[in-house]
Each structure stands twice: as C-alpha cells, then as structure tokens.
C-alpha cells in the first residue's frame, strides 16, 4: 500500500506537470495576445505602445522563461497579476471559489439523491414499463444541454411566478443563498443524476446476476432482502467511483450554468478570462480544475479500497 501511494502520488505530480506545460503552450502557440485585443477594440495599432505593454506583462520573453516564472511563482503561492483587472490573480480567483464549491456540492447531492434510488428501482424492475420510462428520462437528461435546461427553468419561473431566480451579489444569509443556489444546482444535478442513474442501474444488474444472489434467493430470502441487503451494498461500490467521473462532468455543467444564472463563481470567470486572453487567470484556473479532478479521483480510489476489502493496491 505504501509503495502504491508513493507511485500514485508521483504519477499525480507528473500529470499535473504535464497539464501545466500543455495549457501554457496552448495559450501561447497561436499568434495574438491581450495587446491585440486591446488594440482591436481601440481600432488602431500603436506598435510602440504595444511593445511597451508586452514588455510590462513579460510577453516579450521566450516561452520557456515565461513558463519558469509562472511555476516558480506557483511554488511561492504567487499567481501573477490578472491582465484585465491588474489585481493579483489570487485575489481574483479565491473569492470566487466558495460560491462555485457550494453549487458543486449541492449539484452532487441532487445527482446522488435522485440518481441512485432511481437506478436501483430501474434495475430491480428490469424491462418493465417503469424501467423503460426511467431509462428514457435518464437518457433525455443526458441529451439536454445544461444551459438550455437552465434557460427553461428561468422561463418557467418568469411565466408562472413572475420573478427570475438570478443570483444576487449579496444574498444576505446562508439560508437565502442556498435557496438561490438550489435552482441552478438542480439544473446541473439533473444532468449528472442521469449519469449516476445509468451507472447505478448497470452496476446493480451486474450484481443481481452473481451466484451469491442466487444463493440468497435459494435459501428463501425475500425479494426486498435480496435487493437491498445483498445486492445494493455491493452495487453502490462502483457508484462511488462515479463521483470521480462526476467531478469532471459537473465542472462542464457549472461553466454554462453559472453563465446562465449570472452566478459570480470561478467557472463563469474562466470563460470571461478565456475571452480576454487573460493568461494568468486562465492558466491558474485550469491548473486549479486539474488539481481538483486529480485529487478527487485519488480520494475516490482510496475510499473504494477502504470500502471494498477485496481490493488491495499493489505497489
């Protein structure tokens, strides 16, 4: 286990290093930086001023030097300065994290609370009308673009209640904030719940075909006992790993949903920064996302090993 952990951590560092190189090169490989956008909107190009801005931002340095500066800064907790606001990047990013984190946790909660029970029911009642209906619902959940679902929810609110549940910058207390976040979280969570439901269903079906389930039936255990005592316990194990997949899946949903509901979180901020080619923000945010995904996947694997005594990681 110890050797496995070391190897695993080393691989994580390698992956993160790879992402940092990938993202850094991607952002700079194509001609055009923020100075082009500034002068584009100004309508003329002042070459001398352009050079001056590039020098101030360090964009005239070779790409390797720029990369070295970024990583050296990262190690010291210095993320550089945002181009657009000219504030330290960390001051731009950190305050936006809590609201996105709350949204993500709520969405995950919704997706599990809806997805797991429906997946189990769908598997237990395999090939009945109920199963078909649930499968169609989950497939349609996967087919709706999450921004459109968000827009539909907004539309329903406008039409039936006459107000728009847009996020306000200072919602007052935590209760009110959570209430405002619940609607976008449900929009993100519904899509993810479809994924959870599909995976729960197939995992449950797999377990129901095992020999020990037949044994349990043979010894006369009731259907309820077979399904919920014997099968479900083993079927939820793979579902835990879904949370790892979900982490990446949810972030995609958050990006568009924050945009639709006007929520000032990091996900929407990433899109704004990408539009402005605000490199310090984009590269740090993408790194942040990658770290979250990698760490969540690591924790999921560890939890999995803890929950299932059959799994032992070898070094």
């Amino acid at each position, binding site marked *: 286990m110890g050797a496995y952990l070391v190897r695993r951590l080393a691989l994580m560092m390698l992956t993160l290093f790879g992402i940092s190189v990938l993202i850094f090169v991607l952002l700079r490989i194509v001609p055009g930086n923020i100075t082009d956008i500034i002068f584009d909107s100004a309508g003329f190009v002042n070459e001398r001023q352009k050079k001056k801005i590039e020098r101030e931002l360090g964009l005239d340095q070779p790409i390797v030097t720029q990369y070295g500066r970024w990583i050296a800064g990262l190690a010291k907790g210095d993320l550089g300065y945002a181009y657009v606001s000219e504030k330290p990047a960390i001051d731009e990013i950190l305050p936006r994290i809590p609201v996105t984190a709350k949204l993500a946790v709520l969405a995950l909660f919704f997706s599990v609370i809806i997805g797991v029970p429906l997946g189990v029911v769908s598997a237990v009642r395999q090939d009945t009308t109920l199963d078909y209906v649930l499968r169609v619902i989950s497939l349609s959940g996967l087919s709706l673009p999450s921004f459109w679902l968000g*827009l539909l929810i907004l*539309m329903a609110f406008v039409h039936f209640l006459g107000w728009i549940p847009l996020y306000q910058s200072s919602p007052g207390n935590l209760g009110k904030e959570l209430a405002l976040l619940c609607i976008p979280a449900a929009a993100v969570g519904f899509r993810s719940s479809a994924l959870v439901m599909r995976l729960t269903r197939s995992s449950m079906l797999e377990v129901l075909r095992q020999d020990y389930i037949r044994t349990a039936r043979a010894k006369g255990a009731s259907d309820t006992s077979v399904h919920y005592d014997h099968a479900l316990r083993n079927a939820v194990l793979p579902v835990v790993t879904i949370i790892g997949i979900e982490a990446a899946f949810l972030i995609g949903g958050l990006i*568009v949903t924050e945009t639709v509901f006007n929520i000032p979180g990091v996900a929407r901020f990433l899109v704004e920064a990408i539009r402005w080619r605000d490199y310090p923000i984009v590269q740090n945010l993408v790194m942040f996302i990658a770290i979250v995904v990698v760490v969540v996947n690591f924790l999921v694997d560890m939890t999995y090993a803890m929950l299932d005594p059959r799994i032992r990681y070898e070094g």
Partner: protein
Amino acid sequence: MADHDHAAALERAGANVSGWWSSVAFLARKYPLGAIGAVIMVIFLLTALLAGITGLDPFSTDARSSLARPGGEHLLGADFMGRDVLARIVFGARISLTVAVGATFLGCFFGVAIGLTSGFFGGWFDLLVQRLIDIMQSLPLLVMALVMAASLGPSLTNTIIAIAIPLVPSVARVIRSNTLSLREMPYVEAARAVGMSEVRIAVTHVLPNTLAPLIVLATAQLGSAILVESALSFLGLGVPEPHPSWGRMLSESAAEYVRTAPWLVIFPGVAISAVVFGTNLLGDAIRDVLDPRQRQ
C-alpha cells in the same frame, strides 16, 4: 466479434427473416427505443442534406419582422434581426452535422491510430501515450475544448479541431485496451508464424476486431460533440456568425429573451436535445447489438 453473422444471430433469436426490410423490421421490434433513435437520426440527416432545396433563407434580415411571434409568415418566429427561426434551425442542422461528424471522425481516426500503435507495439511509446491520456483526461471535455477553441480562434474548422482533440484520449484508451487482449489471440500468433509483418498483422488482423467497440464509442461521441459545440457556441467561442449554429442562436437570445421572446429560446434547444437524444437511443441499441456482454 465485429464480423458476426447477422442472419444467424437473427435466426437464433427466432426471427423469420427474408430480405433486408424484414430484418430491419425485426430489429425495430426488438429494440424499439433504438428504432426511435434511428428515425430521429434519419430526419436529422435528411434535414441537413436537403436544407438547400427547402427554399428557406437563414440569412435574410427584415426589420419589420424583428422578434416576430411564431405563426403566419414565420412559422417558428423570427429573431432580433428578423431572420426566420425555422430556416436557421434547418440550416443549423448542417452545422451540427458537420461539426459532429467532423470532430468524431478526426477524434476516432487519431484515437485509433494512437491506441493501436501503443497497444500493439508497447514499449516507450505506450508509456508516453498512457501518460498523455492521463493528462488530457484530467481536464473536463468542455474546459479542454474551450481552451482549444479560444487559442485556435473562432471558425467552423477550428471548432471541429477543438472538439476532436479532447475526444482522442478516450478512443485511444478503449482501442489500446482492446488491442492488448487481441494481440494475445491465437490467430495473431498464427499470422506471425506464417511470416506476416507486425504492421500488417496490426492493420489486417487486430484493427478490424476493434471495430465493434469503436462504433459504440463513436455514436456516443457524436452526441457529446453536438453538445460541446452548442455549449461552445452558446458561450461565444464556437461557430461564429453568420453560421446558423443552434448553440449560437441560444446565446443571442439567452437570458433576456426568456422574458420577451421565449420562442427564440425554446426551438433551438428542442433541436439540440432531440438530435442528441436520437444519438443516445441509437447508441444504446447499437451497443446492445454489437456487444452482447453489456446487454442489459
């Protein structure tokens, strides 16, 4: 495996089949959801192919019909510039189809090439590929596509590339793991024994047998390519004006029109959802047909 005998499979399943039509009818009865998906996909394909002869014009603007309600001259209403929503949805099918097919094809092509090489020949290339896959898969599809799209700049071709590249690792991973088990097969050994070159074995004996999982994966990716395109265009980083992209139509109309012109929000979204729903239904059915182990 890939070249399984359909006629025999149908007969085993108790089908009384003679000719192409009756086997289609049989499959449709056996997989009703898949049949619905197939119908949706056929409608989508026909719309995209025949958009030109419908006489609709997605580009002509008309100040008088700005934000016209559905009905009358504009069946599904008109947008702010007075462009017909129906015409833009019909022509938008072309954009969606182009991006989805283009990105899926590119993604699968490179994914198969990389996965086959790394799985069959192994060695340092395999190690490198595995690490690269890890790296690319630790970023969400949309984030990856967003950064790609932004760095390449907005155009139809760039959108296709930006979506295709993030699709490569998942294809490569599946093809690689398939190849790993296939290369231990007796027939590969036999081919080697008769003196076939390694490259030829990989291409003529291993590659065709990865076709079934590839088809299953490609259908799934068709749907996600359409979704990612719509999200990119919605965020203003995908297919640029004046192309009538479904996602783009929603971004023009977004939050503001929720109140004033709901038809601008509803119809393009219905188009996206219906097509992706179709690919998902069809994809599930294809998976059940091609991969009996996963049959549920």
